[in-house]
């Protein structure tokens, strides 16, 4: 009995054992950004891998256990995690990270959303009321998110406010320089016509001036059939594109099918940190994205 009591006391103490903030990041890009801002002041757990569709994740026991001890949750929002996060939050029994609490942080409200639907109808596929949630494909979006995330870290951990401010300043400077470099390299991509497999790249297109001719999915979230792909093929004869883009986590078949028939390269983009070997951190993510797009031009 004594042993059990000791064990229980140990369990209760666990939550306070580390002074660092326990951060639960829904997607790898937010884990990477939190890492940039919080350094060793945070223990970061990433709920999804670089090769997973962040919209299709299961509320696994491990996620619930990690959410139970989290001080801060960093997610995209805009309904991207709607299929699993509500269950994780409910089951976690952790009021600190519930929507509305200081420990609940969404990135989407910080940026200007694209593709906000004018009508909400599932006949249009899995559309998100607040706009397209794949905001991490435009590096410029990380600036306002970093700003707000740093403020949130300061509110949760005021003792280290100076540290977070200093890290934010450094990140802002380095990131702006990196964006300028990427934009310079990506200049030849301006005005290039592309096809996308899933409507996952409006922010990337907006950033680099890519022109999206069409998408392979008939509606967001619906897998294309061969007959639909044939229609796309006809469309591409009228309006040719230079390459077909897909995220690393997506099934390659629809892209390859089109690429073979219209003789354009199928380009796989990492989409997030960890999406491929070169995208090991936020800088690698965009270095590699630009490199792969440029390779697609050749």
């Amino acid at each position, binding site marked *: 009995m004594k042993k059990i009591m000791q064990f229980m006391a140990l*369990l*209760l103490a*666990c*939550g306070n054992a580390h002074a660092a903030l326990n951060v639960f990041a829904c997607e790898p890009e937010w884990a990477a950004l939190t890492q940039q801002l919080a350094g060793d002041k945070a223990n970061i757990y990433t709920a*999804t*891998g670089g*090769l*997973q*569709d962040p*919209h*299709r*994740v*299961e*509320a*696994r*026991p*491990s996620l*619930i*256990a*990690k959410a*139970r*001890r989290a001080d801060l949750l960093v997610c995209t*929002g*805009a*309904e991207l995690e*709607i*299929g*699993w*996060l*509500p*269950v994780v939050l*409910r*089951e*976690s*029994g*952790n*009021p*600190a990270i*519930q*929507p509305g609490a200081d420990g609940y942080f*969404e990135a989407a*409200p910080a940026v200007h959303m694209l593709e906000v639907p004018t009508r909400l109808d*599932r006949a249009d*596929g*899995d559309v998100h*009321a*607040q706009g397209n949630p794949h905001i991490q494909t435009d590096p410029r979006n990380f600036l306002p998110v970093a700003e707000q995330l740093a403020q949130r870290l300061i509110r949760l951990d005021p003792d280290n406010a100076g540290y977070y401010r200093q890290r934010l300043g450094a990140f802002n400077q380095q990131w702006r320089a990196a964006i300028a470099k990427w934009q310079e390299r990506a200049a030849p991509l301006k005005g290039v016509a592309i096809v996308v497999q899933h409507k996952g790249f409006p922010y990337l297109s907006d950033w680099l001036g890519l022109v999206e001719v069409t998408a392979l999915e008939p*509606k967001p*979230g*619906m*897998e294309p059939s061969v007959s639909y792909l044939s229609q796309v093929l006809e469309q591409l004869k009228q309006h040719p594109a230079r390459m077909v883009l897909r995220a690393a*986590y997506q*099934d390659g078949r629809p892209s390859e099918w089109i690429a073979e028939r219209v003789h354009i390269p199928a380009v796989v983009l990492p989409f997030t940190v960890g999406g491929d070997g070169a995208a090991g951190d936020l800088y690698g993510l965009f270095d590699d994205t630009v490199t792969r797009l440029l390779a697609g031009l050749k």
Partner: protein
Amino acid sequence: MSNNIKRAALVLLAASSVGAAPANAADGEAAFNPAFSLILGGTYGNLQRDPAVPATGFATDQNPGHEQGFNIGESEMGIFANVDPEYRGVATFALAPAGGISVENAFVQSTALGNGVNLKFGRFFSGLGYLNEQHAHAWDFVDQPLAYAVLWNNQLGEDGVQLKWLAPTDMFLEVGGETGKGRNFPGTDTAKNGSGANVLFVHIGDDIGIEQSWRAGASWHQTQRIAATSTGVPDLPNTSGGVSDSFTGSSQTAGLDFVWKYAPNGNIRERYWKVQGEYFQRRESGNLTYDTAGKNITDTYAVTKTGWYLQTVWQYMPRWRTGLRYDRLDPGSAEVGALNAAYVIANYGYTPTRTTWMLDYSPSEFSRFRLQLAQDDSRQGLQDNQVFIQYIMSMGAHGAHSY
């Protein structure tokens, strides 16, 4: 003057941030306040045998059976919202095939207790086992495993209180307890104070790398059966149409469950593989009254019954899944009191089994069509080859599914 300008600017700033807030606040369930969802489901069933015949040796248990022909068995309506900062309310209503609506769930859940504590009260699906909490539209097969059909009348619903605690450990560890009226089988709905049934359960689970995850659990259920009457029970004199028996005594059930899932790169959108199994053992002990309408003889009776299933579901490409399930029951060997030894069957000498295969196709995240074939040997000498076609469509608030 400059102060006025400053004030105006502040007001504008405040107004713009207020203006921005509703867009953010319209997130998740609150976007529809309350959130509303409707599941439209229906089945076409083709059976070779009368579904009213229970599994051999389980005439005193449940037989939810199957509907023949067209029916809308799985249609369900749900309403959920936060009540206030501390509670969330959930109600789901099932549309009965023959018309009418029944209250499936109507519970309130705490949201602010903290320390991993979750409190639920009202009418809810018990947290025992793995499948019990899942709603019909989330089942991987048209029907529940035989063990659930026979031992829990498909799904144990409870009117009562549930308290769960999640340990602050790296590995998922959850313990919970329930106490309730015990209205539903194996409980008997009797008017009395206090609680009629109790449940305890523990779940553990974790990931193995990013590709595998699992959950295992143990549960225990206890209730008192009072004058539980069963009709059409076969007897040793082989009375045509069986007899009516009545049982009063304790019912204790222990269960084990596990589920293991694998997805390449952890990406369930493309492909995944799931294996799950559950085992239940029920001990009933008390007094049995044989043939309440005729001989009416009461003596002691005790029996241990078991049921288990093992199933696997494989999503071999996006949108397409196939699954296989094997069910087995054992009616056990009863200890029948001397007065009833010549009448009550102690040992049926038969173990009901069933093998089921399914194939389903989901055009989108919100729709699914399913074909299911089953060879049902749950009734001795009455092999039934069953065919089902099913659709499940969900509308309204985007649901979030449990593991």
